């Protein structure tokens, strides 16, 4: 577990250095994810240690959003003032994005299948 955790942190650190060094709009952890993906492709898969550790981290991914979510206490005034546009915007945009993305992907997936 420690070896895998070290590997994840090293890749995040390298990603952070690349992002800041080249002034990229992409955050370090996402570059770290791309680097790990490349490493896995070159090595032909993760070690069982890495697989177990990443599974452990991802199984409770929800937990990691709780501290930032609790930050809503900093914005209670704004939320109280603008609750209607915020609610309608979040709700309609979430439904639209889910539905349009899924429907268009299904359309393309069918095209691909029938086109072959």
């Amino acid at each position: 577990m420690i070896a895998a955790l070290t590997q994840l942190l090293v890749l995040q650190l390298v990603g952070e250095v690349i992002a800041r060094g080249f002034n990229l709009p992409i955050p370090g952890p996402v570059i770290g994810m791309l680097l790990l993906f490349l490493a896995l492709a070159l090595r032909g898969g993760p070690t069982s240690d890495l697989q177990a550790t990443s599974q452990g981290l991802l199984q409770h991914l929800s937990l990691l959003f709780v501290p930032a979510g609790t930050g809503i206490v900093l914005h209670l005034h704004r939320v109280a003032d603008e609750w209607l546009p915020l609610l309608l915007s979040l709700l309609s945009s979430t439904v639209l994005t889910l539905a349009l993305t899924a429907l268009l992907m299904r359309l393309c997936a069918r095209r691909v299948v029938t086109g072959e």
Partner: protein
Amino acid sequence: MTPQINELWVYLSTSPLLGLTLTLLAYQGAWWIHRRAGFSPLANPVLLAVAALVALLAVTDTPYQTYFDGAQFVHFLLGPATVALAVPLYMQFQRVRAMLVPVIVGLLVGSVVAAASAVLVARLFGASLATQLSLAPKSVTTPIAMGIAERIGGIPSLTAVLVISTGILGAVLGRYLFDALRIRDPAIRGFATGITAHGIGTARAFQESEQAGAFAALAMGMNGLATALLLPALLPLLQ
């Protein structure tokens, strides 16, 4: 007795131990309810845990910064967890390659619709400009979204809250919406959830299946890149 309790409180309220432990306890409680509810998307664990913590901070009159001094250790793990998403992505890569065209179409449609519809609806109902700009990156994973908000003139900490609200909404609504639209392919369900609802949607997608989770992780990473690149160009068109 009372002075001792006061001393204890003074110690606890300045130590990171309390914020960290409370975060984990709130999540354990939320997860217990989520499990008792048969893993229903309606009993979303992030929503339940945040609600409990907000109530607790209000009742004890604790500033968010004091709480976050402890909770930051949990928050920090978002970084390594994002890197770790490469593992399920690698395991599902055969399927991703076969779905390349739908994936690219889904990415372009999803990232533009997510940002444009949020900004336009908010403006239509009279939100302030700062709120509109904070909403624009709301479908992108927290650290990227906060960076984008800062660059385009939104409020980063407000964006974080809107991102998480969007994540909860997407995780709650996704299953019912896809069932109603008869979308059954776990790859498409996962990808659309990841585009819309980033990490919280991805956590939910992993509960449906490993394949849905991997596609959600892919969508989350790609949408982070796409929105960071497209949004600065898209915003002038929306003004």
